[in-house]
């Protein structure tokens, strides 16, 4: 890299470092995103691990007092008893359990006693509660079934012809894959967000402030200008990524993951891997954002363009972390790297080939964008907005 390029990089960085907006953009994201994720996970874990009492409507509870008592000991209660919960309104779920009139008499005869569960299974909010209720009813039924066999002199194990042994090769880390997929997505997105303001400022902003023409009047080539700007924006993106990772490392250590049955740790190996894999993405992010910003006529216009353009990597990232990606996505930028990272988190072997190809494609796209930018800086239309 020539001295002039280094000079320009240095100037871009000094300039950017003094730009509160550019710095804060990265900083807000680096601090905010992991904390928001943590908050979300806290809520999620709270919901999953300390299930509140489930209040449902039970028709004819006096028909099966033992069943009702069993359910209540498992936190599933008949919701109509408002008087028991003083002041607080009881949130009764829209689930109806009908105990048939002949429940007790059928039960006494040793034949199936009917219980009807009425609920809208398409209601997302109810599904968990429905499953919980079903599971408890099945447990109750299984326990009674076993005791009925014992009462008839039969070993209840005859009802379990197959004993299934499962040897799960997942590690506590790999169980966290799904969660960490989302977390990783927000991390990698840091390279886009952290460099965005700088990218706009140094391109559309530079032109808006008339310093672009001055710069071009000096004896530097357009490729030197493009390279220095890409390097500066990339560095900002990477710094943002590093910050995000460091904040995540601390923030995530406070989340009680263990209550979900796995652990999530952002260790230094992961940080290193993330930085390495994130670099091509950061370069592409810089190229993409600079390219779009150079096309825009003003700072504001660039901002609105970028907001739309950044949907693209976001969607790629989401597709990868929710694993809804078609096969081809594994070769593409962002999604390819994310999929590789998720594999890495799960403790599996890093898919080298896939990662190499997606990284190469990422860099190729970057090069094309850089070339386009370099061309555009020679265009009178772009430089003077003619």
């Amino acid at each position: 890299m020539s001295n002039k390029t280094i000079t320009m990089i240095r100037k871009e960085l000094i300039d950017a470092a003094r730009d509160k907006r550019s710095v804060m953009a990265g900083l807000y994201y680096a601090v905010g995103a992991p904390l928001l994720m943590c908050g979300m996970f806290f809520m999620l874990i709270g919901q999953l691990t300390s299930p509140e009492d489930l209040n449902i409507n039970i028709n004819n509870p006096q028909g099966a007092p033992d069943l009702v008592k069993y359910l209540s000991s498992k936190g599933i209660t008949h919701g109509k008893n408002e008087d028991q919960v003083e002041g607080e309104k009881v949130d009764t779920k829209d689930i109806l359990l009908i105990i048939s009139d002949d429940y007790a008499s059928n039960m006494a005869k040793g034949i199936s006693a009917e219980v009807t569960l009425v609920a809208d299974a398409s209601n997302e909010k109810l599904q968990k509660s429905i499953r919980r209720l079903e599971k408890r009813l099945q447990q109750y039924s299984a326990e009674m079934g076993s005791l009925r066999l014992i009462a008839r002199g039969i070993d209840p194990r005859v009802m379990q012809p197959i004993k299934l042994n499962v040897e799960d090769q997942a590690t506590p880390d790999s169980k966290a894959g799904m969660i960490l997929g989302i977390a990783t997505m927000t991390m990698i997105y840091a390279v886009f967000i952290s460099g965005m303001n700088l990218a706009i400022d140094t391109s559309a902003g530079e032109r808006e402030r008339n310093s672009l023409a001055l710069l071009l009047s000096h004896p530097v080539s357009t490729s030197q200008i493009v390279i220095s700007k890409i390097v500066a924006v990339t560095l900002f993106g990477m710094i943002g990524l590093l910050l995000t990772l460091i904040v995540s490392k601390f923030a995530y250590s406070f989340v009680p993951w263990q209550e979900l049955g796995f652990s999530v740790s952002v260790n230094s190996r992961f940080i290193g891997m993330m930085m390495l894999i994130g670099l091509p993405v950061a370069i592409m992010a810089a190229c993409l954002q600079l390219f779009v910003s150079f096309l825009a006529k003003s700072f504001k216009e660039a901002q609105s363009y970028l907001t739309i353009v950044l949907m693209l990597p976001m969607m790629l990232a989401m597709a990868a972390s929710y694993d809804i990606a078609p096969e081809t996505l594994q070769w593409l930028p962002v999604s390819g790297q994310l999929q590789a990272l998720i594999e890495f988190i799960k403790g599996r072997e890093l898919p080298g080939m896939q990662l190499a190809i997606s990284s190469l494609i990422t860099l190729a796209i970057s090069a094309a964008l850089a070339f386009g930018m370099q061309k555009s800086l020679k265009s009178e239309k772009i430089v003077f907005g003619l």
Partner: protein
Amino acid sequence: MIQVSNLSKRIGDVQALNDLSFSALDGQITGLLGPNGAGKTTCLRTVFGLLKPDNGFAEIDGINIAKSPVAAKQQLGLFPDPFGLYERLTPREYISYFAELNGLSRSDAKHATSSVIEKLHLADIADRQCKGFSQGQRMKTALAQAIVHQPTNIVLDEPTRGLDVMSTRVLRDILRDLKNQGHCVLFSSHVMQEVAALCDQVIVMAEGRVVAVGSPDGLCQQTGKASLEDAFIQLIGTDEGIAA
């Protein structure tokens, strides 16, 4: 020396430059005088290679700007309009930055920056960020940027626009100094007095072409008018866009 030969440039529907030819010599101050829209800025941008002429060429010390842009630009200093300062850099950083871009080593650039700061009496503001500078301070900073690498040719685009009287005087003194040091100084202006007071040679432009060339006195004689102002109106046929 800056030499412009047969430049033509069409921007949109307007023929901005129309077979424009002139030269600005070393040791002289050359004024490019013309009404607004005469093509002065387009001309200067072409000299810097920022615009590509449809026809003709510009040479800096004999180097064709279109063919060897970097070498040619090395011989140029631009005082642009508007100034294009980096608001978050200090004048020292700003000046030094452009010095380095013109090929000076880091330490040479530092020295050159220090001396130009001294020369332009910028010391008191040299280490403050440019944000909030007065117009005069901005002018000095931009000018320092233009001359820090001691180019043979200094081009100024409407240098006195927006300047107060004191700053204008300072600028004039500096330009005279540069001339005396043997630099070629080319500036565009639409201010008559400024041109009359400073220039050795005046190039009068209108509608993208040279209308007349000569010293201020020469132009008066040529048109038979007593003042340059009258001569100018005579030359371009109108007084529109000209400031006294």
